[in-house]
């Protein structure tokens, strides 16, 4: 009898956990997929990053008390995984093709510059790219980015500055209006 009760309790907890996790995943998967795509640069990489992050979240679900922190947890796993040197090298080797990288979908109002800027973003080193994605897509503060990346806010600032400098250097003049504001930052 005791065993049966224990088993039923375990099953109930598992059902609750799965229901909670499923609700979170349904609500947040499309948005987090977009972040994964910007980090990875292609759909295969994005799926791999996100599925792995969700799996680790699932394993840690009961330990995370602050449900507001879930997105941050998933982002942190995805960013760290994507920053791996060896993993990047694997992706470079395994996915080398003659075709250009996927450029995403552009709406009718895109004058083409968005695609070009995205191409330049894809050439940034992973940590700079992660800072750019978290800052300009997720619109996180420097402190929030520092928390996700496990680095200091000062390093976030310097990485962002380097990324912008690199984009400025690589972008054609048409994408790079002389802007005193950038220089000042």
């Amino acid at each position, binding site marked *: 009898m005791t065993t049966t009760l224990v088993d039923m309790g375990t099953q109930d907890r598992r059902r609750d956990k*799965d229901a909670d*996790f499923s609700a979170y*995943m*349904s609500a947040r*998967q*499309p948005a987090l*997929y*977009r*972040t994964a*795509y*910007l980090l990875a640069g292609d*759909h295969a990489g994005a*799926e*791999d990053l*996100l*599925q*792995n992050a*969700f*799996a*680790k979240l*699932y*394993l840690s679900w009961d330990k995370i008390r602050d449900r507001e922190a879930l997105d941050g947890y998933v982002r942190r796993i995805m960013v*760290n*995984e994507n*920053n*791996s*040197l*060896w*993993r990047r*090298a*694997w992706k470079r*080797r*395994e996915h080398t093709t003659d075709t250009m990288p996927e*450029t*995403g*979908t*552009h*709406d009718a109002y*895109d004058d083409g*510059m*968005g*695609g*070009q*800027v*995205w191409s330049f*973003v894809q050439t940034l080193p992973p940590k700079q790219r992660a800072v*750019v*994605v978290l800052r*300009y*897509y997720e619109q996180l503060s420097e402190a929030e980015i520092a928390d996700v990346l496990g680095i200091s806010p000062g390093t976030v600032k310097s990485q962002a500055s380097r990324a*912008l400098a690199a*984009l*400025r250097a690589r972008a054609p003049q048409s*994408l*790079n*209006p002389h*802007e005193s*504001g*950038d220089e000042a*930052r």
Partner: protein
Amino acid sequence: MNTPLEDRVHDALHRTADPLQRAPFTVGDVRTRARRIQRRRAVAAGAAVAAVLAVAVPFGLTMTGPAQRTEVPPATQTPSYVGQVTIDPRSAEVSATPAGVPLLDLSVPSVSAGSAQLDLPKPYEQLTPYRDGWIGTLNVDGDYVVDVLDDSFTVLDETPGASPLVVSPDGQRVASTFDAGDHWSVINSDVAGEELERPWASVPDGPVGTVVTPVGFVSADEVLVSRLDGGDGTFSYYLADGDQLEPLPWLDQPTSASPVTGTIAAQDDSCAAVLDAHSSSGAALWRTCDHVLGPFSPDGSLVVGFTPTPGGDYPGLSLLDAATGASRVDFRVTMPKRHVVGIASQVVWEDDEHLLAVYTDNADQYVVRLGVDGSVERVAGPVTVESGEYALRLTPGDVG
């Protein structure tokens, strides 16, 4: 307030990503992936525990002196047989020469590299010189992470979902594997960074729980890897050479390999053997039922043979001629009453004639240098640890 360039970046990212409305996974997909991670953690943790410490529990024997040669070589041994030597690090000569390989103290955590002791930001379980810095492994709840570090131990890159590293006996090459999603990649690189990056072999993934682990180097180009099938629990073995993968269907339970001689030490249920890695049949060069085989010396001439006990613990080890299996010297631990004494199975060759081993006596741990000439020196310790914990770790690598 953003600058115009920042606005451009913001717009470009949103135009790229916003139209994406994908939700490719179900909760079932995620649970499956989670189970695979969980199984891999469990296997890795089990392997780590098995590799950590083999402890002998002595009964009724009295303490003996340091480095005593207690037996005359038997007539049946080879002429170069030294004899049986008892290890007692408390009374052994304290060496003025530090360990020639990285010595980690997880209780600090720190690494001793030659005469320098360097504090570490994280408790790396393995660490060896790599490029201009280091490469090391962390055990995060049973999940291995490989970090590439600069010379001040700043993490340059990290690879989660990895295996423990295998470092060649001379410390000049490292191999690792990691879960690349639909397969496992096998990496073989030189620590000096003088080679062009080699292609990586891909070992097929399998059911949840499938794990691929490097065993050793059979040559500079060939890494021996094992694959545990998560479905049926069977092991298979491969030689990975660049992106080529050769199955070794005749191989069973390899424990180490020599890149100099191209041989593999392997174990079956009760006996061990040394095999030619390039044999089509896997015929044994020699067999022994008296030892469990450990790593080969850098020149491939010697191989460690742990002394098994009915309980599977190792109360001693021998240095065996790798070509014949004949013992050159047998080391035994001291066995004072009411002490738990043993030698960790994680031993590392310092050079062709000296082996470094971690010796545990209750809560005290030492590193001892065991010479093929029968010499015993205390290199480090004692470090006091909680019972059952394990602070000192050795990794192959040249820090001389």
